[in-house]
């Protein structure tokens, strides 16, 4: 499950790093443009979104506290909330600027799936502050003939303490 190469076989076809990079770059653009419906469309129904706590040591989201552990219902509630004028912590919305790099593809025991790791650096501007958020992505993607979808989207923060503004109200 852990071999990382430029190309892996998943969902009955070859997936290239370029295809995965395009998928992640597209996602970054969507989020930076606050197109939350388009963002949700990148998930398969039933998918999850997780942001573990900064002292995470690999426990399941149920065995340990975390910042975000959204099942499909909560993920949709989050998107609905972010689109609302009453999501005060994101009204006006934060400006974000995302960089995604170090993209690596890993085979998965389930032949329909692909594990993708990448590094992220997000800058967030809000209320006269400009804060960096750094970490890595550890995603599970479903592959089909059409393209890629998130089954699990996990952003693991690299911070010891989340100093820049406690409001993780935007999507990491």
């Amino acid at each position, binding site marked *: 499950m852990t071999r990382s190469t430029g190309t892996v076989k998943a969902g009955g076809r070859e997936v290239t790093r370029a295809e995965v990079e395009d998928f992640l770059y597209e996602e970054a653009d969507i989020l930076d443009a606050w197109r939350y419906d388009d963002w949700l469309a990148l998930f398969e129904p039933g998918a999850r979104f997780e942001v573990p706590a*900064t002292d995470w040591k690999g426990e399941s989201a*149920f065995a340990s506290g975390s910042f975000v552990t959204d099942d499909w219902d909560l993920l949709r*509630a989050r998107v609905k909330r972010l689109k609302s004028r009453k999501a*005060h912590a994101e009204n006006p919305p934060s400006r974000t600027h995302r960089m995604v790099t170090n993209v690596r593809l890993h085979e998965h025991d389930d032949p329909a799936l692909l594990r993708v790791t990448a590094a992220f650096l997000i800058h967030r501007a809000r209320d006269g502050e400009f804060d960096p958020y750094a970490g890595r992505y550890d995603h599970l993607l479903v592959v089909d003939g059409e393209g890629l979808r998130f089954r699990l989207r996990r952003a693991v923060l690299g911070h010891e303490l989340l*100093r*820049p*503004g*406690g409001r993780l109200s935007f999507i990491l």
Partner: protein
Amino acid sequence: MPEPQGASLPDRLIVEDWDGLTFRVNRFAYRSEEIFERERAHIWARTWLYLGHETEVAEPNAFRTRVLGGRPLIFCRDSDGTVRAFLNACPHRGTVLCRENEGSTKLFQCFYHAWTFRNNGDVAAIPGKDAYEAAGEGFLDSMRLRSVPRLEIHEGFVFVAFDPDVPPLLEYLGDAADYMTMIREQHAAGMEVLPGTQLYSVRGNWKLAVENAMDGYHFSPTHNTFVGYLRETGFAVTDDDQYAYNLGNGHSLLVLTGHGGRISMLWEPRFGEDEKRRTEAHRAEMDERLGPERARYVADESHILFVFPNLLLFDLEGLSIRQLEPAAAGRTDVRAWQLAPRGEDEDTRALRMKTMVSFVGPGGLATPDDIEAYEAVQRGIEATAGDPRPGMDFSDMSRGMVDEVKGVQGRSIDEGAMRGFWRHWIKAIGAEDALAATGPRPAAFLEGRNVR
């Protein structure tokens, strides 16, 4: 803008008017580094502070490092099983001794000159000890790790004090103590802190975090999107029968009965049918174990308990512990843990974690708006700093004051718990003279309640 250097305390920090029924707090109290220093010296250095939960150092030799009132600490269980807290500084020349956040060790070794200490504080080794020979055993004794002057544990909650002369912990906790007992009683097997700490920092004064927790008034407007989510899952939040209590010593309590379900104690539709069955079974067990009256207090009411000055217990759908560490007048480091029943079955645990995390913490659906609110206060209160017109630079906390006169129990959607907090705060920082009261205080404020 910081206040001008060397500015003295304003002579009116709190203005309480029993004729006009108003209660106002000088916004200087949230901005001033001088007040911050005074709080460090008078509150953090002189009262009991919440350090952590016993189960965070469950095994002998387990340790964690923590900071309270700006002082680095080692929180550990020694090889014999005793819970201890040491100042995390080498007795030799002051180096931070333990530079890991957590782990397990019998010995702490300072990297600077390699002095080594046992986890009960004894000196284990000093390289080249013969150079201190003339000083004898007394020297080794004087070089023991420095313990915090006081450490006491109530229901697994570990408190420390930097002042040896604080009263016994139970006396200090007063009426707050029983609400902590009620938490332990929720499950026969007791509770434990789970791994995965929410560690974050907010750009707001610590007192704003306390006020926000005691402020039921903000719930509907601030958490509009969360209330909407609850409504869609089949639960309507109400403000009925929700009360605020001042428990004395600065501690306060909200009792919330219209707030929502409680995992394994009070079912609501979003928890699902399996949980309904589990809740019924658990409730029967509680009735048996605690008696129906006590079980009702433990299970049917949600509580938000504030233990002055740095502990908030959110006993809601699930249980979160939140610890406040003021880092500067305008910045607070927050640490939050989930407290869960030992040996809980997997499905309940999964439901608990999903439910709690969806509400609390900076990535939840509700807490970000709270943080937005008090960070916005911190920015907004600069507007009137130094305003020469009288009364401009004050925040109003009069809501529900008329009930205090009538002797009616204050509601959670009023500001009585905040007033209680501020009345205690001003005594605690030794500035009682800066509370300007007009008119006679009513005979009795309603405080505490008997649940025993």
